[in-house]
């Protein structure tokens, strides 16, 4: 087997960088999108205010996309993320207001409910060996119906929460830095993604997540407890969604059982644009964050330009396909 031994040119080194750091591609797309809209919309778009607004607008999708990434890395998919999120937030709200629990305890219950939902998914996937798509297609409907039944379709008003249980709105609090406003929810999203990026790269658990997504039989034979890994991933995903539910209360102020219907499609879109393989085992969670930000930047930019919302959906559709085409092209060139 012969090999070319060339001097690494700049191009080749760039290609190599792209190859070993898969999240670079979406990062470049993100920067390009920001530059494009700065040109089209003008200075307003480039302001610290607008840019921190993008962060605020993607925080929920960003958090959910982190959960979705974990699942997709194991070659699964979680269609129930949105339902878990909204059910958890409703539990936090109703446990406080209907049952009179101390809000801290209610938050804890909400987090536990999310974790429990994730655990159910995990058990069905790991022990019953059902395909994740089917499992979460089913639990999606079950969790969502539970949400509607349990909430009795009641929305809890922001004013009441502010007065009686401000901790529910914790993630909505904000601080200013320069011209930018950061909510705790945004900070949580960033810490979460960085934390998971660390765990996926630098701990044994993270390596096992990749190994399970790559080839579950091989992982099992080489000493990974695949069942435990799968269950930990789905459960953690549920817990993260519950946190997203909490952050959601902070973001919209109130507790509403109709929230989050689009969260699964949006989170999958972010993951896909972020260059994470739907077949598992490949991709970086930073990519998912950049993916969410790309959608956020494009949406905000188009909205600020006053584009018809239908055209926004149109362009996001095109963006999904183009992003994956670019990603594939770069990988081909770089290999």
């Amino acid at each position, binding site marked *: *087997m012969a090999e070319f031994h060339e001097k690494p040119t700049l191009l080749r080194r760039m290609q190599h960088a792209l190859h070993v750091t898969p999240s670079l591609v979406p990062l470049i797309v993100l920067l390009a999108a920001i530059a494009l809209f700065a040109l089209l919309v003008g200075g307003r778009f480039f302001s610290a205010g607008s840019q921190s607004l993008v962060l605020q607008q993607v925080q929920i999708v960003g958090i959910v996309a982190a959960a979705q990434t974990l699942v997709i890395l194991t070659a699964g998919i979680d269609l129930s993320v949105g339902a878990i999120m909204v059910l958890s937030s409703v539990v936090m709200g109703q446990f406080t207001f209907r049952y009179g629990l101390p809000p801290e305890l209610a938050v804890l219950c909400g987090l536990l409910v999310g974790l429990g939902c994730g655990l159910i998914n995990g058990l069905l996937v790991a022990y019953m060996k059902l395909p994740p798509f089917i499992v979460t297609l089913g639990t999606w409907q079950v969790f969502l119906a539970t949400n509607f039944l349990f909430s009795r379709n009641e929305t809890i008003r922001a004013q009441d929460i502010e007065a009686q249980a401000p901790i529910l709105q914790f993630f909505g609090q904000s601080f200013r830095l320069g011209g930018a406003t950061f909510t705790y929810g945004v900070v949580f999203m960033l810490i979460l993604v960085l934390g998971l990026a*660390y765990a996926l790269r*630098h*701990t*044994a*658990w993270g*390596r*096992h997540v*990749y*190994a399970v997504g*790559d*080839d579950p*039989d*091989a*992982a*099992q*034979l*080489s*000493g*990974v*407890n695949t069942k435990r890994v799968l269950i930990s991933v789905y459960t953690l995903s549920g817990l993260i969604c519950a946190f997203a539910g909490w952050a959601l209360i902070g973001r919209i102020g109130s507790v509403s059982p109709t929230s989050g219907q689009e969260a699964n499609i949006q989170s999958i879109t972010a993951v896909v644009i972020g260059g994470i393989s739907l077949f598992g*085992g*490949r991709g970086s969670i930073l990519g998912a964050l950049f993916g969410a930000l790309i959608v956020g930047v494009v949406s905000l930019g188009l909205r600020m330009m006053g584009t018809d919302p239908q055209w926004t959906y149109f362009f996001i559709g095109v963006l999904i396909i183009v992003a994956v085409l670019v990603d594939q092209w770069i990988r081909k060139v770089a290999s």
Partner: protein
Amino acid sequence: MPLDMQSPSSSREPILTARGLTKRYGKVVALDRCDFDLYPGEILAVIGDNGAGKSTLIKAISGAVIPDEGEIRLEGRPVHFRNPTEAREAGIETVYQTLAMSPALSIADNMFMGRELRKPGLMGRLFRQLDRPRMEAFAREKLSELGLMTIQNINQAVETLSGGQRQGVAVARAAAFGSKVIILDEPTAALGVKESRRVLELILDVKARGIPIILISHNMPHVFEVADRIHVHRLGRRLCVIDPKAHTMSDAVAYMTGAKVPEEMKAA
């Protein structure tokens, strides 16, 4: 011809025994009340036709498959491995026929899969950070021992290696971590002449370190070159155990394929 079914080449106690192992897949009986013995320090070859149940036997021993019936003892104590991890923790290291590697992960990641080293101190205990430098240095050392350091980058993904190189990594992993028993299922099947030779040398090395080896192979010259005893597997069970010095390759093949029946069997 001396055919020994029970008695070992030495009179010591076996380190690993199995009695009456049975494993069914639907209508197929892959293991049919199979017995097995491995003695300390020996190289035991297992030969048999395709589908005879060799891989299933060693999977049962290494925890990858749970037998329907039968008993396994390691150093005299009964063991019940529920997965390969438990067998590994007991000191049994296996190279499966399918190699069992994660293609997208690096060589070092794969070598330490399931027994990763953590950084000393706080980073390791609290943040559970992997000790990459230590794992890489170790992996590099083990691969060099196998003469596999044509691999330039220990952080290369396994999927970028050739079939032979992968095989080498798998064997190096087993040799590095096996403390009681090392099992190799067709370790030279995908290998060229030079690489096969290195693996055979490694097997002898490991034996020299006093660790017994189970070697499954279809390659008779290899088997006869290194094995101390040969377990002939047929129709899901041990047909007989033969001494390579007292038998020819054609004898072995004849037993394997059923062309010839061992003496005691005829009597029975």
